[in-house]
């Protein structure tokens, strides 16, 4: 990234907050102790990890022992799904997940499916929302776990997590939410939401890459995913990434302190982008719900131009504006339509054509102005699939 670049891909990853970097630096230098050591250097590291755990717990309304640090949000998702299922290996297993989950959940469930578990992939409404009634109909007596993401990474749609958790509990199933996109951007009080497990990732909230966390409700027993020295309550053995955890904790603290003012600011910028795109006369439509979405998340498409997204992104890239056509994690399958948009009912061509603009803490009003100036000109260079669109 260089000066003047406009980074509107904060759903993929976020820039490290300088305050987070500052907090991490001592643990990349003089403070290199192992938290498991009993000497002073080790105790200093242990204190730093404990403080980070407290900060993450505070962000979620949890208690520190309920936070298990991992190396990523993906690992936290894996631990949640496989850790629950491993507790029920001798009895029938059934998992319910939404069809629009991140691959970190979907692929884990497919792995479980290959090992004999039953998996139901819940359909979503056209706005990307999982209806509680749909979930209720999918539950079985042997359903062990329901996993529905708090906010979708591609379209930004927010799910009715507390309602879905209540439905799962009424049927005796545990409830996990992948909150990697939502954490730090909206209130996620685990008690109010009623979730049993919740995953997050530090690099989505201006923390470092390579750090995740899983909230595990007190009293819930999981099977470990990594075996070794017994760190993280034995669920995730490995010497702690102290600097990373410190960064995660600081990122959580800042997100919690600044959440409301940041949400207000981002919603205003988001609304300006929606209005600006609608005004550019290219038959733009909102993908996902217009309001039930993350504060800085815009996902739109242009009727008749969906197949040209492959040209739109490089054209914006040339202007040093970095946006996305979907999840960064799906770039390994770039030729495939988005599974999220397909699940929402978009045809295979439309499902390749969404433009995802995700704002973050360092996105500015001037950047939005510049983007809205460049976009209409860029759209003019595209070749529509149809000579006219009627709405």
């Amino acid at each position, binding site marked *: 990234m260089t000066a003047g670049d406009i980074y509107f891909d904060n759903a993929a990853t976020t820039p490290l907050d300088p305050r987070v970097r500052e907090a991490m630096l001592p643990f990349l230098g003089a403070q290199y102790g192992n938290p498991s050591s009993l000497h002073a250097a080790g105790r200093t590291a242990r204190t730093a990890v404990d403080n980070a755990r407290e900060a993450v717990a505070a962000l979620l309304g949890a208690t520190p022992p309920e936070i298990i640090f991992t190396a990523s949000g993906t690992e936290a998702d894996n631990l949640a799904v496989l850790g629950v299922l491993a507790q029920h290996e001798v009895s029938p297993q059934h998992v319910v997940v939404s069809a629009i989950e991140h691959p970190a959940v979907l692929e884990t469930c497919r792995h479980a499916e290959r090992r004999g578990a039953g998996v139901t992939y819940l*359909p979503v*409404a*056209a*706005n990307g929302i999982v209806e509680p009634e749909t979930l209720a109909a999918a539950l079985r007596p042997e359903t062990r776990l329901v996993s529905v993401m708090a906010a979708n990474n591609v379209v930004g749609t*927010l799910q*009715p997590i507390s*309602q879905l958790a209540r439905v799962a509990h009424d049927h005796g199933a545990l409830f996990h939410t992948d909150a990697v996109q939502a954490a730090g951007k*909206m*209130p996620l009080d685990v008690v109010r939401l009623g979730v049993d497990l919740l995953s997050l990732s530090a690099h989505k909230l201006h923390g470092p890459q390579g750090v995740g966390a899983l909230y595990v409700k007190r009293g819930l027993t999981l099977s470990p995913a990594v075996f070794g020295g017994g760190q993280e309550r034995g669920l995730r053995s490995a010497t702690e990434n102290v600097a990373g955890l410190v960064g995660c904790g600081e990122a959580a603290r800042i997100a919690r302190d600044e*959440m*409301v*003012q*940041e*949400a*207000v600011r981002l*919603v*205003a910028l988001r*609304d300006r982008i*929606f209005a600006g795109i*609608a005004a550019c006369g290219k038959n*733009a*439509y*909102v993908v996902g*719900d*217009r*309001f*039930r*979405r993350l*504060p800085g998340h815009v996902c739109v498409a242009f*009727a*008749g131009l969906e197949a040209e997204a492959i040209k739109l992104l490089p054209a914006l890239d040339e202007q040093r504006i970095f946006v996305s056509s979907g999840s960064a994690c799906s770039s390994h399958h770039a030729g495939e339509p988005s599974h999220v*948009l*397909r699940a*929402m*009912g*978009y*045809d*295979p*061509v*439309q499902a390749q054509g969404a433009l995802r603009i995700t704002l973050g803490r360092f996105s500015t009003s001037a950047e939005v102005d510049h983007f809205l100036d460049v976009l209409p000109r860029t759209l003019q260079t595209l070749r529509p*699939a*149809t*000579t*006219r*669109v*009627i*709405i």
Partner: protein
Amino acid sequence: MQTSTAVPSVELPGLDCGLCGVATCEEFRARLTKSPDLIKRCIHLDAGSQRRALLRVVEDPASRGPATCTSGTCVAPIATDGSRKWVDSLGREFDFVLQHFPEEPGPREIIIPHNPMLTREMEIKKGDVMIGRPLGMSCGCPVTHCGEVRDVDPRTGVITWCVTGPLRPRQEGFKDIGYYIAEAYEGLIQASRNEIKIGMRYYFQPDMCMLQWRHSGLVNYINRSASGLQVRLEGLWIG
């Protein structure tokens, strides 16, 4: 302009989360008195609570669902009343009738002259009245077509026109582009007997075809509109 003065009787969550765009629920409630529609911005209320709180529901024109059905890529059969005979003038079956956009003078065709340079040499422009015949592989119609130009791409020579009857060329004169290739049709489907899926080839009956012969083409664009199912068909053949 919204003029309601009643305060919606809705219990706001009291989380002061800012996700509606204002910092506190109290401030949000104050704004609701002027604009009840803002209730849609509270993500913590379910749709039922929002509906109850709304004094007037206004659909957001910028929001819409996907063009196709929510169960996949298909658009279900539109008319199955059994009264329509799905055969052309030669007794051949077809899947749907392609109608032109209601405010346009005739079916919308995307064509290219056999010599694309003609588009520039003849200075074809929007509004011109033009004649020509769709020769050869695409799509082989023996009838010379007349119509009005809607759009021109001078770089490629591609012309978009609406095919009309012969009266206007007789009255106003015309530009004759000779033979052309019909690259695509665009129009509306208001009745079909089969699911319409993107990527599938169908037999269809252009509503205004003088010969009432069925055509076939590949659907490569679908858009559900208020007027019907808008489609684009390429790879056109007669029969």
